[in-house]
């Protein structure tokens, strides 16, 4: 991991500084809208980082990753619906549920490879999606409004305060970036990356790759569930749309756009993706007409994503 400083590092550092400064910049420019935009961007970045862990470093292309956003969100929504607003119940519930679901899905999905894996993760996510659609008690398609954000029971972390909410998201993002880095350079990450490039060989060395891959799958699920927890709190709303398969596609897209298997790629990708869609949608309501071909061009010509263009080498090298 010893590498020279590249433009990619500078851009990453700049982005993080920007994320940290947005509330001040927004109030200085009198554009409070940008606080929400960047809070959303950071939440998507957390989700994209979690996907990058399994997809970028582990080669497990999950096309149903948004399901954990939904589960994490619904853990908040459903508990709040029953008047349980304590974060000390909601957070463990979100984490526990995501871990459990990821474990069960992982056991099923990791028996398969390649195309099968992509489609099975998609199908299992659809299953949860339809479950949430059919849950009439919890709003079905219309979703659930959340009256009160998660209550941490202390004066310090009061999520009802906009700035505290923003910096909580920021802190979680930093934590996830750090965790991703520690995991990737550790022995665990080494096994994960090695089993992406040649699993048979890793097994021949005597390492039970299945356990490593499953563990990574569960960790990624929990991390994405955390993003769902934050999203539900930020928007005060959860709906099945959070785990629509389009969301899973967008997550993959952000990660690839930024650069898979790079530490800061998911963050860069989330920023580029969301700002670009924000901009294009102000030009025309038919912005998907431009965005679709743009995607294809990115796939065809910009391999390695933004980070690749900026000269970052993936940690695979």
């Amino acid at each position, binding site marked *: 991991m010893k590498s020279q400083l590249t433009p990619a590092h500078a851009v990453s550092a700049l982005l993080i500084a920007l994320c940290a400064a947005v509330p001040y910049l927004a109030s200085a420019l009198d554009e409070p809208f940008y606080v929400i935009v960047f809070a959303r961007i950071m939440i998507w970045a957390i989700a994209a980082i979690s996907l990058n862990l399994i997809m970028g470093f582990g080669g497990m292309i999950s096309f149903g990753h948004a399901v954990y956003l939904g589960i994490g969100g619904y853990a908040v929504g459903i508990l709040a619906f029953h008047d349980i607003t304590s974060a000390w119940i909601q957070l463990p519930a979100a984490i526990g549920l995501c871990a459990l679901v990821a474990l069960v899905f992982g056991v099923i999905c990791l028996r398969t490879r390649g195309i099968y894996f992509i489609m099975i993760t998609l*199908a299992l996510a659809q299953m949860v999606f339809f479950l949430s659609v059919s849950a*009439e008690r919890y709003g079905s398609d219309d979703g659930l409004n959340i009256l009160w954000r998660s209550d941490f029971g202390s004066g310090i972390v009061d999520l009802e305060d906009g700035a505290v909410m923003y910096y909580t998201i920021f802190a979680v993002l930093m934590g996830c970036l750090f965790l991703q880095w520690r995991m990737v350079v550790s022995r665990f990450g080494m096994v994960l990356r090695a089993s992406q490039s040649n699993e048979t060989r890793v097994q021949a060395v005597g390492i039970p790759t299945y356990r490593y891959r499953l563990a990574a799958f569960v960790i990624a699920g929990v991390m994405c569930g955390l993003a769902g927890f934050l999203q539900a709190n930020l928007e005060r709303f959860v709906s099945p749309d959070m785990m629509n398969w389009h969301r899973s596609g967008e997550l993959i897209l952000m990660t690839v756009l930024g650069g898979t298997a790079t530490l800061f790629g998911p963050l860069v990708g989330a920023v580029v993706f969301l700002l670009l869609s924000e901009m294009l949608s102000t030009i025309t309501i038919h912005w998907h007409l431009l965005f*679709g071909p743009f995607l294809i061009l990115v796939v065809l010509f910009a391999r390695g994503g933004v980070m690749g263009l900026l000269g970052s080498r993936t940690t695979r090298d």
Partner: protein
Amino acid sequence: MDYVLLIEQLLNGFQLGIILFLMAAGLTLVFGIMDLVNLAHGSLFMIGAFVGGTLTLVTDSLVLGAVLMVPAMFAIGVLVETIALRTLYRRSHLDQVLATFGLILFFNEATRLIWGPEGLAVPLPDFLEGTVALGAGITYPLYRVVIIVIGLLVALGLYLLVARTRFGMLVRAGASNREMAGALGVNIPVLFSLVFGIGAVLAGLAGLIITPITQAAIGMGEDVLILAFVVIVIGGIGSVRGAFVAALLTGIIDTMGRSFLDVVLLLFLPPNAAESAGPALSSMLIYILMAGILFFRPQGLFPPRGATAAP
């Protein structure tokens, strides 16, 4: 007369299975032969409904519309394959997923631009209205019988095409070993284009055929696409026979689950719980089926012979 309802629902499931088969057949061939994850297959379903629906409205005949749709969809399929997908064959599955996801966004928006956001309704012609008596007090809508018959005919035709013709032989050769087939002088790019065109026609036919019942809408192909994924995963990727069996299985289990699962649950759950668990569980049923089958047979029910599916 509970068995009347049972048989009606069984036929409904059969009909859903037929639609799924038309989708899955093209998808599984494209997967099996070209090793391409084509998410935009659902868009072809939608385009078939809109193009076929427009042709029907112009010619004022559903039959004529369907007949004219076949060359139109074939042309669209070949065009999409040549312009957008051909470069993707050698790319990773991830690239293919992303690029075809981009195609979905494009097609949805293009359809919205051309036909407007409210979709397209195609009336059922008079001679297809009404019901048929199937005996024993069972009547069933004529049009749904027609769907089932058309689907079975297409399945038979596809079987003959794949199993009995020279073209089918090349397709099977391509599915089991692309490089070897190419080395033996098969013109692989042309073969790919033809197969993709056929897949587009089948998907378009499926889209048009249900339009008189549901009407054409933007994004209508996406739910069907995911069900078709389930079907080909259960059936074994690349196997048309597997797609047929799995499509009927999926269609029937899904429909029967939605109609009767709450009744079954009532046998051992209190009414309250059964009423709320029924719809939830029935919408999950086919995914549970898929997970179950994959757990024991990760390659699906009918993995094609000689295919190197799991590297």
